């Protein structure tokens, strides 16, 4: 059992206090959906939890490991707004590098991950030639091959077609059933079961 504990977290951007004294706890198997209007601090919260941004106050711990420690970062996968792909590399080369940043994965598993996400035949296609939705699928494939326990997904359904959304939802459910946990933001309707919501 893992628990992800956030205590008294505050975040300020410029003169705006985005949120303060935010505390919550997410246990293994739970899906937490973060909602809020544009500019309410959803992305900032996920970036703080991912260790990209610095938090002014409060504590973030995963099984007693603090944010930014190696043990913590190893268990966390952050999917941001951007595609995180180089236009000069093929889907497979991009995926190889992105997964190596987490843990090395065999080439066959990476090709299988691309097939699973609906990119069969696009393994050797340069990312410059992919559509926005296909680019999104490449980075989602790197999420699916990672063995991170905590998934922090910022608008994971952006640019995906209904079939793509379904694949991602199934993988999130599967991940949480297998002992993972997931925090995500979206403005779209989500049919994920057992999702808890917090509003910023």
């Amino acid at each position: 059992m893992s628990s992800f504990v956030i205590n008294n977290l505050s975040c300020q951007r410029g003169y705006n206090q985005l949120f303060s004294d935010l505390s919550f706890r997410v246990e293994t198997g739970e899906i937490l959906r973060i909602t809020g209007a544009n500019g309410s601090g959803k992305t900032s919260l996920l970036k703080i939890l991912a260790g990209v941004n610095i938090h002014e106050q409060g504590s973030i711990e995963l099984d007693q490991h603090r944010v930014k420690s190696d043990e913590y970062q190893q268990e966390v996968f952050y999917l941001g707004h951007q595609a995180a792909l180089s236009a000069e590399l093929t889907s497979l080369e991009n995926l190889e590098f992105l997964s190596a940043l987490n843990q090395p994965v065999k080439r066959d598993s990476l090709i299988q991950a691309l097939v699973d996400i609906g990119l069969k035949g696009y393994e050797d296609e340069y990312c410059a030639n992919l559509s926005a939705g296909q680019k999104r699928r490449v980075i989602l494939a790197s999420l699916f091959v990672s063995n991170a326990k905590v998934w922090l997904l910022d608008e994971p359904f952006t640019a995906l077609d209904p079939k793509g959304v379904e694949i991602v939802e199934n993988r999130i459910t599967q991940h949480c059933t297998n002992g993972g946990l997931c925090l995500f933001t979206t403005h779209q309707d989500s049919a994920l079961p057992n999702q808890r919501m917090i509003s910023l």
Partner: protein
Amino acid sequence: MNIYLQTLSRDLRVALRNPSSILNPLLFFIISVSLFPLAISPEAATLSQIAAGIIWVASMLAVLLSLNALFHHDFDNGVLEQMVTSHHSLPLLILSKITAHWLLTGVPIILLSPLLGVFLFLDEEGIKVLMMTLLLATPSLSLIGSIGASLIVGIKNSGMLLSLLILPLYIPILIFASSAVSQAQFGLDISGQLYFLAMFLVLSLMSAPFVSAIALKISLE
């Protein structure tokens, strides 16, 4: 160590598939050096005296020209964010990017320098020392440059700012490297200059990746 090599090969692959990013600084290097004989004097005596200075200034500016691209693309497309959230050491990842930068700008400059040295009537001893100083100091240029590049990564049109930040730090290298070449031309001992350049390399190798990592994290905020 594996991630170091993987990042290095990725960076080299990205750069080789976009050759203009490598060729632009090198062409600038060759063109700027070759304009001096036309503007100053084609006489061997004059040119051989100022050859080391010209080649060193041009190589410094060529490196500066290429530094903007060091982190810029990865910042724009979000790869840097993934590097920062990775459990791998960020300074190590940055060091591999710096190595790729040196292999793509520093090494071609070292290889081109004898040709340009002959062009400016530099004697054999001068060319040898010029290559030695470039070999010792171009890695420092990439390392120190990475600090500036990581500080300005989020700023648009920041070329001027980068020069202002980095050039003062390059000055000691310029002074010691070009004086080594001109002293060698007179047959004087140059070990002092070479030791200084080596010390500068060790210092920047030990500090630049760590400072760049901190600067990158601030830029990503």
